[in-house]
């Protein structure tokens, strides 16, 4: 199962950092996401995109996770050679991740 089917995400950018939220449609899936979507799993999944450290923040009051990914935007908005300089579409790269139900 892809994360896409149980959660949604929005990507943000600050310099060369990409921020990726991960929000379950059903708040009951929050614990499940905390178990399955570890920093190690996300690092492996995004290995061709994120080259720096990834920090995961847990937000239990709003049943959401936030992944802050360093060195993820090919130097950042203003000088990156990528088409999507902000990495705005990277939310859907995270949602491509396969997890076992």
């Amino acid at each position, binding site marked *: 199962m892809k994360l896409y089917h149980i959660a*949604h995400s929005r990507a943000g950018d600050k310099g060369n950092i990409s921020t990726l939220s991960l*929000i379950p449609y059903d708040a009951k899936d929050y614990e499940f996401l905390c178990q399955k979507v570890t920093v190690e799993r996300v690092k492996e999944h995004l290995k061709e995109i994120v080259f720096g450290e990834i920090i995961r923040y847990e937000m239990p009051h709003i049943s959401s996770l936030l992944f802050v990914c360093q060195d993820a935007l090919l130097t950042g908005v*203003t000088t990156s050679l990528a088409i999507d300089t902000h990495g705005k579409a990277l939310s859907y790269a995270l949602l491509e991740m396969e997890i076992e139900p």
Partner: protein
Amino acid sequence: MKNQIRIGCGAGFSGDRLEPAMILAEQGNLDYLVLECLAERTIALAQKRKLADPAKGYDPLLERRIEGLLPLLVKNNVRLITNMGAANPMEGAKKIIEIANKQGILIKVAAVIGDELSDELKEMSDEISKFNNEDFAINLIKNHSSLNPLFSPLISANAYMGVEGILEALQSEANIIITGRVADPSLFLAPMIHEFGWATDDYNLLGQGTVVGHLLECAGQVTGGYFADPITKPVTNMDTLGHPFADIFSDGSAIISKVEGTGGVVNLATVKEQLLYEVVNPFAYLTPDVSANFTTVHLEQIAENQVKVWGGTGHEKPSTLKVSVGFQAGFLGEGEISYAGQNALARARLAGDTLEKRLKADFPDLRTDYVGVSAIHRTDFAHQIEPYEVRLRVAANADTAQKAALIGEEVEALYTNGPAGGGGARKYVTELVGIVSVLVDRNKVIPEVIIF
């Protein structure tokens, strides 16, 4: 002192739609309308326009936005707070007065200045500290601390100011407050402090107020914009997407909503996406006013298109301010060409390989993308689906426009020298403005208010 105010946000970036703000001003029953129009790079581009013409450098859409909004703002007694001043709030304020005179409307406008550090940068260069370990930024300033474009790649240096200047302006009679660089949430926090009499060191209130400002600052991004997915997150009437307003209470709690009859949706999912948007540390979301803690925030849907937000907290504001430094970053050269039908990807790859052979020596960082396959995520996660059509796109940076143009020229030359069936070649050269951030002592940045 009031115990409740309503603030709307009618623009989340410089190029945002015009009419949602008009709808908010007309039907929103607002106390304040905020237009947030300055992204990180916008001010450097505005600075370039100001260098070319000293009467410019404010937001290029200022005239059109103000012409439409002014009669509605005055009729409904709504105060406008906006950072459309960009690199030139003074000239922006004068332009607004000029428009008001033309419309026969008598108003006062306050310009908040002091964010521009162009002249101060040189003398401060020993006190500037690193933001995000960008040694590059420090070197750039130390070695090129003059902002004279003839001698230096530096274009602009603007500090993110907090609520102070806006608070002073709110004490005046000004109907419109126009600023340069101010932290986005401060545009919203200032009227809360002003109306509720919050102490500027009551960091829990300032933290919660900053949460509300952060939710509103991208306008349509909290009302279903940049959210919709037709399968998992359907949103109705995106063509008439309403921009948000918040009813804010004196304890900082707020209800996020939008004007009835407008398109879009406000629900827990839209609010959560926006709450976490561009947040690098939810325990310490730093603004010039407060270090806000987003992890204590609670949300509840209380009615259709109404989400209550409360519980945000905060700690003492930072002793430094972030300064965005704009610099000339050379030129971007790009070229594109499409292949479709049988073997489209293989033909696009042959074209890409051919270009790499011809360009790699002069452009070692040449980037080759296959649009429709792996250009956006920079991988296809090994899906290896054969696409019906592919667009090849190559890009590289260069010191001069002439050199950057070589990229597009080589792509175009594939018409007669490249693989079969290539079509729709396009070439682009773009002048690049880079942005780096540094930190300065906040006491070096002094806001000033000028009333017109």
